Protein backbone atom coordinates (compact mmCIF):
# COMPACT_ATOMS: atom_id res chain seq x y z
CA UNK A 1 0.00 0.00 0.00
CA UNK A 2 1.04 3.55 -0.57
CA UNK A 3 2.64 5.27 2.38
CA UNK A 4 0.17 7.49 4.17
CA UNK A 5 0.96 11.13 4.72
CA UNK A 6 1.97 11.92 8.27
CA UNK A 7 -1.13 13.95 9.05
CA UNK A 8 -3.83 12.09 7.26
CA UNK A 9 -6.82 13.47 9.05
CA UNK A 10 -6.94 17.19 8.89
CA UNK A 11 -9.40 17.90 11.63
CA UNK A 12 -12.60 19.56 10.62
CA UNK A 13 -13.68 21.61 13.66
CA UNK A 14 -17.28 21.81 12.50
CA UNK A 15 -17.58 18.01 12.81
CA UNK A 16 -16.45 18.00 16.42
CA UNK A 17 -18.72 16.98 19.28
CA UNK A 18 -18.11 20.44 20.68
CA UNK A 19 -19.98 22.07 17.82
CA UNK A 20 -22.69 19.45 17.98
CA UNK A 21 -23.25 20.08 21.68
CA UNK A 22 -23.24 23.82 21.31
CA UNK A 23 -25.74 23.64 18.51
CA UNK A 24 -27.95 21.28 20.47
CA UNK A 25 -28.03 23.61 23.45
CA UNK A 26 -27.61 20.95 26.10
CA UNK A 27 -25.04 18.42 27.20
CA UNK A 28 -25.87 14.71 27.37
CA UNK A 29 -24.00 12.96 30.18
CA UNK A 30 -23.93 9.25 30.94
CA UNK A 31 -23.86 8.56 34.66
CA UNK A 32 -25.36 6.45 37.42
CA UNK A 33 -27.86 7.13 40.16
CA UNK A 34 -27.04 4.75 42.98
CA UNK A 35 -23.48 5.45 44.17
CA UNK A 36 -23.00 8.15 46.75
CA UNK A 37 -21.07 10.36 47.00
CA UNK A 38 -20.45 10.24 43.27
CA UNK A 39 -23.90 10.15 41.72
CA UNK A 40 -27.15 9.52 43.56
CA UNK A 41 -30.53 11.06 44.25
CA UNK A 42 -31.11 13.25 47.25
CA UNK A 43 -34.35 13.22 49.20
CA UNK A 44 -36.01 15.56 46.72
CA UNK A 45 -35.24 13.12 43.92
CA UNK A 46 -32.56 15.30 42.34
CA UNK A 47 -29.33 13.78 41.07
CA UNK A 48 -26.40 15.01 43.13
CA UNK A 49 -22.78 14.04 43.80
CA UNK A 50 -19.26 14.75 42.63
CA UNK A 51 -19.86 13.45 39.10
CA UNK A 52 -22.99 15.56 38.85
CA UNK A 53 -21.15 18.68 39.99
CA UNK A 54 -18.58 18.15 37.25
CA UNK A 55 -21.29 17.71 34.65
CA UNK A 56 -22.92 20.92 35.78
CA UNK A 57 -19.60 22.70 35.52
CA UNK A 58 -19.23 21.54 31.93
CA UNK A 59 -22.71 22.86 31.14
CA UNK A 60 -21.95 26.16 32.75
CA UNK A 61 -18.84 26.53 30.62
CA UNK A 62 -20.73 25.58 27.49
CA UNK A 63 -23.95 27.50 27.90
CA UNK A 64 -23.39 29.62 30.97
CA UNK A 65 -26.17 27.59 32.57
CA UNK A 66 -25.57 24.80 35.11
CA UNK A 67 -28.91 23.22 34.34
CA UNK A 68 -28.46 22.50 30.63
CA UNK A 69 -27.52 18.86 31.19
CA UNK A 70 -29.50 15.79 30.28
CA UNK A 71 -28.47 12.77 32.35
CA UNK A 72 -28.67 9.33 30.81
CA UNK A 73 -28.75 6.97 33.75
CA UNK A 74 -26.93 3.74 33.14
CA UNK A 75 -25.34 0.78 34.87
CA UNK A 76 -21.57 0.37 35.09
CA UNK A 77 -21.70 -2.16 32.26
CA UNK A 78 -23.10 0.51 29.99
CA UNK A 79 -20.36 3.10 30.30
CA UNK A 80 -18.41 2.16 27.20
CA UNK A 81 -21.23 0.98 24.93
CA UNK A 82 -23.12 4.20 25.35
CA UNK A 83 -20.07 6.15 24.19
CA UNK A 84 -19.34 3.79 21.35
CA UNK A 85 -22.92 3.95 20.15
CA UNK A 86 -23.02 7.73 20.50
CA UNK A 87 -25.81 7.75 23.06
CA UNK A 88 -24.00 10.27 25.28
CA UNK A 89 -21.49 13.07 24.78
CA UNK A 90 -19.41 12.12 27.78
CA UNK A 91 -19.40 9.61 30.60
CA UNK A 92 -18.90 11.09 34.04
CA UNK A 93 -19.35 8.02 36.20
CA UNK A 94 -16.46 7.26 38.59
CA UNK A 95 -14.46 5.57 35.89
CA UNK A 96 -11.13 4.06 36.84
CA UNK A 97 -8.47 4.69 34.23
CA UNK A 98 -6.90 1.51 32.89
CA UNK A 99 -4.81 1.16 29.77
CA UNK A 100 -7.11 -1.59 28.56
CA UNK A 101 -10.12 0.69 28.67
CA UNK A 102 -8.09 3.45 27.10
CA UNK A 103 -7.88 1.34 23.95
CA UNK A 104 -11.56 1.92 23.43
CA UNK A 105 -12.34 5.31 24.86
CA UNK A 106 -10.27 8.38 25.59
CA UNK A 107 -9.93 9.50 29.18
CA UNK A 108 -9.90 13.10 30.30
CA UNK A 109 -7.60 14.40 33.00
CA UNK A 110 -8.24 12.56 36.24
CA UNK A 111 -10.13 14.51 38.86
CA UNK A 112 -9.66 12.25 41.83
CA UNK A 113 -7.07 9.80 43.03
CA UNK A 114 -8.76 6.89 44.72
CA UNK A 115 -7.47 4.13 46.94
CA UNK A 116 -9.25 1.20 48.53
CA UNK A 117 -9.69 0.60 52.22
CA UNK A 118 -11.63 -1.61 54.61
CA UNK A 119 -14.73 -0.86 56.59
CA UNK A 120 -16.09 -3.12 59.33
CA UNK A 121 -19.09 -3.34 61.64
CA UNK A 122 -18.52 -1.35 64.79
CA UNK A 123 -19.38 -4.36 66.93
CA UNK A 124 -17.94 -6.94 64.54
CA UNK A 125 -15.24 -9.56 64.78
CA UNK A 126 -12.42 -7.34 63.54
CA UNK A 127 -11.95 -3.64 64.06
CA UNK A 128 -8.80 -2.70 62.16
CA UNK A 129 -6.98 -3.57 59.02
CA UNK A 130 -4.28 -5.23 61.12
CA UNK A 131 -6.79 -7.51 62.82
CA UNK A 132 -8.18 -8.61 59.49
CA UNK A 133 -4.73 -9.24 58.19
CA UNK A 134 -3.83 -11.22 61.29
CA UNK A 135 -6.92 -13.35 60.89
CA UNK A 136 -5.46 -14.65 57.62
CA UNK A 137 -7.58 -17.23 55.86
CA UNK A 138 -10.53 -17.00 58.20
CA UNK A 139 -11.38 -13.43 57.21
CA UNK A 140 -13.72 -12.78 54.33
CA UNK A 141 -13.78 -9.51 52.41
CA UNK A 142 -16.68 -8.32 50.29
CA UNK A 143 -16.18 -6.00 47.34
CA UNK A 144 -17.78 -4.61 44.22
CA UNK A 145 -17.25 -6.79 41.22
CA UNK A 146 -14.14 -6.03 39.19
CA UNK A 147 -11.80 -8.35 37.45
CA UNK A 148 -8.78 -7.11 39.40
CA UNK A 149 -10.51 -7.19 42.71
CA UNK A 150 -8.97 -10.40 44.04
CA UNK A 151 -5.58 -9.19 43.05
CA UNK A 152 -6.18 -5.90 44.80
CA UNK A 153 -7.36 -7.53 48.00
CA UNK A 154 -4.50 -9.98 48.04
CA UNK A 155 -1.95 -7.24 47.63
CA UNK A 156 -2.69 -6.16 51.16
CA UNK A 157 -4.38 -9.26 52.56
CA UNK A 158 -2.69 -12.22 50.90
CA UNK A 159 -4.83 -14.90 52.53
CA UNK A 160 -8.29 -13.37 52.91
CA UNK A 161 -11.28 -14.80 51.07
CA UNK A 162 -13.09 -12.54 48.58
CA UNK A 163 -16.80 -12.30 47.74
CA UNK A 164 -17.82 -10.10 44.83
CA UNK A 165 -21.13 -8.30 44.40
CA UNK A 166 -22.62 -6.36 41.54
CA UNK A 167 -23.71 -3.27 43.41
CA UNK A 168 -22.39 -1.30 46.37
CA UNK A 169 -25.59 -1.73 48.33
CA UNK A 170 -25.43 -5.52 47.94
CA UNK A 171 -21.89 -5.41 49.23
CA UNK A 172 -22.83 -3.27 52.15
CA UNK A 173 -25.75 -5.54 52.87
CA UNK A 174 -23.38 -8.47 52.90
CA UNK A 175 -21.44 -6.68 55.62
CA UNK A 176 -24.62 -5.86 57.55
CA UNK A 177 -25.73 -9.47 57.29
CA UNK A 178 -22.24 -10.51 58.43
CA UNK A 179 -21.82 -12.55 55.29
CA UNK A 180 -18.43 -10.86 55.05
CA UNK A 181 -16.15 -9.55 57.77
CA UNK A 182 -15.00 -6.45 55.99
CA UNK A 183 -16.19 -4.24 53.15
CA UNK A 184 -13.52 -3.29 50.69
CA UNK A 185 -14.41 -0.06 48.93
CA UNK A 186 -13.16 3.17 47.52
CA UNK A 187 -11.96 5.32 50.34
CA UNK A 188 -14.29 8.09 49.19
CA UNK A 189 -17.26 5.79 49.56
CA UNK A 190 -16.08 4.61 52.97
CA UNK A 191 -15.72 8.17 54.16
CA UNK A 192 -19.22 8.91 52.96
CA UNK A 193 -20.70 5.93 54.73
CA UNK A 194 -18.89 6.68 57.98
CA UNK A 195 -20.32 10.16 57.79
CA UNK A 196 -23.87 8.87 57.13
CA UNK A 197 -23.83 6.31 59.93
CA UNK A 198 -21.55 7.75 62.58
CA UNK A 199 -21.58 4.83 64.99
CA UNK A 200 -22.35 1.83 62.91
CA UNK A 201 -19.06 1.17 61.15
CA UNK A 202 -15.35 1.49 61.79
CA UNK A 203 -12.68 2.26 59.25
CA UNK A 204 -9.66 -0.04 58.89
CA UNK A 205 -7.07 2.72 59.00
CA UNK A 206 -5.08 1.66 55.95
CA UNK A 207 -5.46 2.39 52.27
CA UNK A 208 -3.77 0.92 49.23
CA UNK A 209 -4.06 0.33 45.49
CA UNK A 210 -4.17 3.89 44.15
CA UNK A 211 -6.15 4.42 40.95
CA UNK A 212 -7.40 7.47 39.14
CA UNK A 213 -10.93 8.54 38.26
CA UNK A 214 -11.61 10.41 35.04
CA UNK A 215 -14.34 11.04 32.54
CA UNK A 216 -14.30 9.40 29.12
CA UNK A 217 -15.25 10.51 25.63
CA UNK A 218 -15.56 8.82 22.30
CA UNK A 219 -12.15 8.33 20.68
CA UNK A 220 -11.06 10.32 17.64
CA UNK A 221 -12.28 13.76 18.60
CA UNK A 222 -9.31 15.74 19.96
CA UNK A 223 -11.18 19.03 19.91
CA UNK A 224 -13.87 17.82 22.28
CA UNK A 225 -11.40 16.00 24.51
CA UNK A 226 -9.19 19.02 24.69
CA UNK A 227 -12.07 21.27 25.60
CA UNK A 228 -13.22 19.00 28.42
CA UNK A 229 -9.64 18.75 29.68
CA UNK A 230 -9.40 22.52 29.70
CA UNK A 231 -12.49 22.78 31.89
CA UNK A 232 -11.21 20.08 34.28
CA UNK A 233 -7.76 21.58 34.56
CA UNK A 234 -9.03 25.06 35.21
CA UNK A 235 -11.40 23.63 37.81
CA UNK A 236 -8.51 22.05 39.67
CA UNK A 237 -6.00 24.82 39.11
CA UNK A 238 -7.66 27.97 37.77
CA UNK A 239 -10.80 29.97 37.37
CA UNK A 240 -13.28 27.38 38.61
CA UNK A 241 -11.21 26.28 41.60
CA UNK A 242 -13.68 27.63 44.17
CA UNK A 243 -16.53 25.61 42.71
CA UNK A 244 -14.37 22.49 42.56
CA UNK A 245 -13.06 22.93 46.09
CA UNK A 246 -16.59 23.36 47.44
CA UNK A 247 -17.58 20.05 45.82
CA UNK A 248 -14.58 18.29 47.33
CA UNK A 249 -15.50 19.59 50.71
CA UNK A 250 -19.11 18.62 50.32
CA UNK A 251 -18.69 15.09 49.03
CA UNK A 252 -15.34 13.96 50.40
CA UNK A 253 -14.89 16.21 53.40
CA UNK A 254 -11.50 17.20 51.97
CA UNK A 255 -10.29 20.81 52.22
CA UNK A 256 -8.19 21.60 49.15
CA UNK A 257 -5.38 24.09 49.51
CA UNK A 258 -5.57 27.01 47.12
CA UNK A 259 -3.20 26.46 44.19
CA UNK A 260 0.04 28.43 44.63
CA UNK A 261 0.53 31.41 42.41
CA UNK A 262 3.68 31.59 40.39
CA UNK A 263 4.97 28.73 38.32
CA UNK A 264 2.07 26.41 37.26
CA UNK A 265 2.14 23.59 39.79
CA UNK A 266 1.11 20.95 37.25
CA UNK A 267 4.36 21.31 35.42
CA UNK A 268 6.50 21.49 38.50
Amino acid at each position, binding site marked *: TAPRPAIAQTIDPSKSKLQEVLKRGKLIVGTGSTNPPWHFEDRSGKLVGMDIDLSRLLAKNLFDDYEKVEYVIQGS*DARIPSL*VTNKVDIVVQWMTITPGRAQQ*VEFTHPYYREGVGLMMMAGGKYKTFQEVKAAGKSAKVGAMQN*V*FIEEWVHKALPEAGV*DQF*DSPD*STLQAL*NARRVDAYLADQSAIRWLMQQFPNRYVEGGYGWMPNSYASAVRPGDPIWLNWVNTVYKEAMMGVDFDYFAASYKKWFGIELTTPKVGFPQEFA
Partner: protein
Amino acid sequence: MTYQFNFDVIFRSFDKMLAGLWLGLWLAALSLAIGTVIGLLAAYGRQSRLAPLRAVVWTYVEIIRNCPILLLIFFVYFGLPELGIFFLGKIESFVITLSIYAGAYLCEVFRAGLASMPARYVEAAKAIGLRPVQRQVHVVLPVMFRITLPALSNNLISLFKDTSLAAAIAIPELTFVTRQINANTFRVMESWLTASALYLVTCYAIAWLLRRVERRYAVIR
Protein backbone atom coordinates in the same frame (compact mmCIF):
# COMPACT_ATOMS: atom_id res chain seq x y z
CA MET B 1 -21.02 0.96 11.51
CA THR B 2 -18.26 2.49 13.56
CA TYR B 3 -17.66 -0.26 16.06
CA GLN B 4 -14.71 -2.62 15.63
CA PHE B 5 -15.43 -6.07 16.92
CA ASN B 6 -12.63 -7.82 18.75
CA PHE B 7 -13.32 -11.27 20.13
CA ASP B 8 -9.75 -12.15 21.10
CA VAL B 9 -10.04 -10.88 24.64
CA ILE B 10 -13.23 -12.89 25.04
CA PHE B 11 -11.77 -16.14 23.84
CA ARG B 12 -8.87 -15.70 26.20
CA SER B 13 -11.41 -16.13 29.01
CA PHE B 14 -13.52 -18.71 27.24
CA ASP B 15 -12.63 -21.51 29.64
CA LYS B 16 -13.97 -19.39 32.49
CA MET B 17 -17.20 -18.85 30.61
CA LEU B 18 -17.59 -22.57 30.05
CA ALA B 19 -16.99 -23.23 33.72
CA GLY B 20 -19.68 -20.65 34.48
CA LEU B 21 -22.08 -22.35 32.11
CA TRP B 22 -21.46 -25.72 33.71
CA LEU B 23 -22.05 -24.29 37.16
CA GLY B 24 -25.33 -22.74 35.98
CA LEU B 25 -26.47 -26.11 34.64
CA TRP B 26 -25.72 -27.75 37.94
CA LEU B 27 -27.55 -25.09 39.89
CA ALA B 28 -30.59 -25.48 37.64
CA ALA B 29 -30.62 -29.27 37.81
CA LEU B 30 -30.23 -29.33 41.57
CA SER B 31 -32.94 -26.74 42.05
CA LEU B 32 -35.26 -28.64 39.73
CA ALA B 33 -34.71 -31.80 41.74
CA ILE B 34 -35.42 -30.16 45.10
CA GLY B 35 -38.17 -28.01 43.57
CA THR B 36 -39.88 -31.16 42.29
CA VAL B 37 -40.10 -32.56 45.80
CA ILE B 38 -41.39 -29.25 47.17
CA GLY B 39 -43.80 -28.93 44.25
CA LEU B 40 -45.18 -32.43 44.75
CA LEU B 41 -45.72 -31.96 48.48
CA ALA B 42 -47.30 -28.58 47.81
CA ALA B 43 -49.56 -30.00 45.09
CA TYR B 44 -50.83 -32.67 47.46
CA GLY B 45 -51.06 -30.00 50.17
CA ARG B 46 -53.37 -27.95 48.01
CA GLN B 47 -55.66 -30.94 47.62
CA SER B 48 -55.60 -31.62 51.31
CA ARG B 49 -58.76 -31.73 53.38
CA LEU B 50 -57.16 -29.41 55.94
CA ALA B 51 -58.19 -25.87 55.08
CA PRO B 52 -55.28 -24.21 56.95
CA LEU B 53 -52.76 -26.34 55.07
CA ARG B 54 -54.38 -25.39 51.78
CA ALA B 55 -54.23 -21.74 52.75
CA VAL B 56 -50.56 -21.93 53.69
CA VAL B 57 -49.63 -23.59 50.43
CA TRP B 58 -51.73 -21.13 48.47
CA THR B 59 -50.01 -18.18 50.11
CA TYR B 60 -46.61 -19.66 49.45
CA VAL B 61 -47.36 -20.23 45.79
CA GLU B 62 -48.93 -16.84 45.17
CA ILE B 63 -46.20 -14.82 46.89
CA ILE B 64 -43.31 -16.67 45.34
CA ARG B 65 -44.72 -16.73 41.84
CA ASN B 66 -45.54 -13.06 41.86
CA CYS B 67 -42.30 -11.74 43.28
CA PRO B 68 -39.28 -10.99 41.05
CA ILE B 69 -36.75 -13.69 41.75
CA LEU B 70 -33.96 -11.17 42.18
CA LEU B 71 -35.69 -9.86 45.26
CA LEU B 72 -36.15 -13.39 46.59
CA ILE B 73 -32.44 -14.03 46.19
CA PHE B 74 -31.67 -10.90 48.19
CA PHE B 75 -34.07 -11.87 50.95
CA VAL B 76 -32.70 -15.33 51.44
CA TYR B 77 -29.07 -14.35 51.14
CA PHE B 78 -29.03 -11.07 53.02
CA GLY B 79 -32.25 -10.95 54.90
CA LEU B 80 -32.46 -14.22 56.75
CA PRO B 81 -29.04 -13.96 58.42
CA GLU B 82 -29.71 -10.41 59.50
CA LEU B 83 -32.88 -11.64 61.09
CA GLY B 84 -30.76 -14.33 62.70
CA ILE B 85 -32.69 -17.19 61.13
CA PHE B 86 -30.28 -19.01 58.90
CA PHE B 87 -26.69 -19.12 57.91
CA LEU B 88 -25.56 -20.69 54.68
CA GLY B 89 -22.99 -20.21 51.96
CA LYS B 90 -23.97 -18.35 48.84
CA ILE B 91 -24.33 -21.44 46.65
CA GLU B 92 -26.54 -23.16 49.21
CA SER B 93 -28.66 -20.10 49.72
CA PHE B 94 -29.06 -19.61 45.98
CA VAL B 95 -30.04 -23.23 45.43
CA ILE B 96 -32.57 -22.93 48.23
CA THR B 97 -34.03 -19.78 46.71
CA LEU B 98 -34.25 -21.25 43.25
CA SER B 99 -35.75 -24.48 44.64
CA ILE B 100 -38.42 -22.57 46.52
CA TYR B 101 -39.10 -20.59 43.38
CA ALA B 102 -39.23 -23.73 41.24
CA GLY B 103 -41.39 -25.43 43.86
CA ALA B 104 -44.06 -22.78 43.54
CA TYR B 105 -44.17 -23.15 39.78
CA LEU B 106 -44.03 -26.92 39.84
CA CYS B 107 -46.81 -27.03 42.42
CA GLU B 108 -49.06 -25.50 39.80
CA VAL B 109 -47.76 -27.85 37.12
CA PHE B 110 -48.38 -30.92 39.24
CA ARG B 111 -51.73 -29.68 40.40
CA ALA B 112 -52.79 -29.32 36.79
CA GLY B 113 -51.31 -32.74 36.07
CA LEU B 114 -53.24 -34.34 38.89
CA ALA B 115 -56.40 -32.54 37.86
CA SER B 116 -56.09 -33.69 34.26
CA MET B 117 -55.34 -37.25 35.34
CA PRO B 118 -58.28 -39.19 33.99
CA ALA B 119 -60.23 -40.59 36.94
CA ARG B 120 -60.55 -43.86 35.09
CA TYR B 121 -56.92 -44.80 35.75
CA VAL B 122 -57.48 -44.45 39.47
CA GLU B 123 -60.65 -46.48 39.16
CA ALA B 124 -58.85 -49.21 37.27
CA ALA B 125 -56.22 -49.23 39.99
CA LYS B 126 -58.91 -49.51 42.63
CA ALA B 127 -60.58 -52.29 40.70
CA ILE B 128 -57.52 -54.51 40.82
CA GLY B 129 -57.30 -53.92 44.55
CA LEU B 130 -54.32 -51.55 44.87
CA ARG B 131 -54.22 -49.69 48.19
CA PRO B 132 -54.21 -45.87 48.26
CA VAL B 133 -50.44 -45.45 48.53
CA GLN B 134 -49.86 -48.11 45.88
CA ARG B 135 -52.29 -46.31 43.58
CA GLN B 136 -50.28 -43.12 43.91
CA VAL B 137 -46.90 -44.82 43.54
CA HIS B 138 -47.65 -47.20 40.69
CA VAL B 139 -50.30 -45.37 38.71
CA VAL B 140 -50.95 -41.73 39.55
CA LEU B 141 -47.38 -40.46 39.88
CA PRO B 142 -45.89 -42.25 36.86
CA VAL B 143 -48.74 -41.15 34.63
CA MET B 144 -48.71 -37.62 36.03
CA PHE B 145 -44.99 -37.28 35.45
CA ARG B 146 -45.41 -38.28 31.86
CA ILE B 147 -48.30 -35.89 31.38
CA THR B 148 -46.31 -33.04 32.88
CA LEU B 149 -43.02 -33.80 31.18
CA PRO B 150 -43.27 -30.98 28.63
CA ALA B 151 -44.00 -28.51 31.41
CA LEU B 152 -41.11 -29.90 33.43
CA SER B 153 -38.69 -29.39 30.56
CA ASN B 154 -39.89 -25.82 30.08
CA ASN B 155 -39.26 -25.25 33.75
CA LEU B 156 -35.78 -26.67 33.59
CA ILE B 157 -34.94 -24.32 30.74
CA SER B 158 -36.28 -21.25 32.49
CA LEU B 159 -34.52 -22.28 35.70
CA PHE B 160 -31.33 -22.50 33.74
CA LYS B 161 -31.88 -19.01 32.40
CA ASP B 162 -32.70 -17.80 35.91
CA THR B 163 -29.33 -18.96 37.19
CA SER B 164 -28.01 -15.84 35.47
CA LEU B 165 -29.37 -13.97 38.47
CA ALA B 166 -26.97 -15.78 40.78
CA ALA B 167 -24.49 -13.19 39.58
CA ALA B 168 -26.15 -10.78 42.00
CA ILE B 169 -24.70 -12.65 44.96
CA ALA B 170 -21.34 -13.33 43.40
CA ILE B 171 -21.76 -16.89 42.22
CA PRO B 172 -19.39 -17.30 39.29
CA GLU B 173 -21.83 -18.61 36.70
CA LEU B 174 -21.88 -17.49 33.07
CA THR B 175 -23.42 -14.06 33.55
CA PHE B 176 -21.08 -13.26 36.41
CA VAL B 177 -18.05 -14.31 34.39
CA THR B 178 -19.30 -12.26 31.45
CA ARG B 179 -19.66 -9.21 33.61
CA GLN B 180 -16.18 -9.75 34.95
CA ILE B 181 -14.84 -9.81 31.44
CA ASN B 182 -16.80 -6.64 30.76
CA ALA B 183 -15.39 -4.92 33.77
CA ASN B 184 -11.93 -5.78 32.60
CA THR B 185 -12.07 -5.27 28.86
CA PHE B 186 -15.24 -3.27 28.37
CA ARG B 187 -15.86 -5.42 25.31
CA VAL B 188 -19.54 -5.45 26.19
CA MET B 189 -20.93 -6.30 22.78
CA GLU B 190 -18.54 -9.14 22.20
CA SER B 191 -18.89 -10.69 25.59
CA TRP B 192 -22.68 -10.58 25.62
CA LEU B 193 -22.83 -11.94 22.08
CA THR B 194 -20.66 -14.85 23.15
CA ALA B 195 -22.65 -15.39 26.31
CA SER B 196 -25.99 -15.36 24.52
CA ALA B 197 -24.69 -17.78 21.92
CA LEU B 198 -23.70 -20.08 24.77
CA TYR B 199 -27.09 -19.68 26.43
CA LEU B 200 -28.92 -20.27 23.17
CA VAL B 201 -26.96 -23.37 22.26
CA THR B 202 -27.36 -24.78 25.74
CA CYS B 203 -31.10 -24.13 25.81
CA TYR B 204 -31.45 -25.82 22.44
CA ALA B 205 -29.42 -28.76 23.63
CA ILE B 206 -31.52 -29.14 26.75
CA ALA B 207 -34.72 -28.82 24.77
CA TRP B 208 -33.56 -31.41 22.26
CA LEU B 209 -32.53 -33.84 24.95
CA LEU B 210 -35.74 -33.44 26.86
CA ARG B 211 -37.81 -33.90 23.73
CA ARG B 212 -36.15 -37.25 23.29
CA VAL B 213 -36.98 -38.14 26.85
CA GLU B 214 -40.55 -36.97 26.26
CA ARG B 215 -40.86 -39.10 23.19
CA ARG B 216 -39.46 -42.07 25.05
CA TYR B 217 -41.99 -41.70 27.85
CA ALA B 218 -44.88 -40.28 25.89
CA VAL B 219 -48.29 -41.32 27.08
CA ILE B 220 -50.94 -41.37 24.42
CA ARG B 221 -54.10 -40.76 26.37
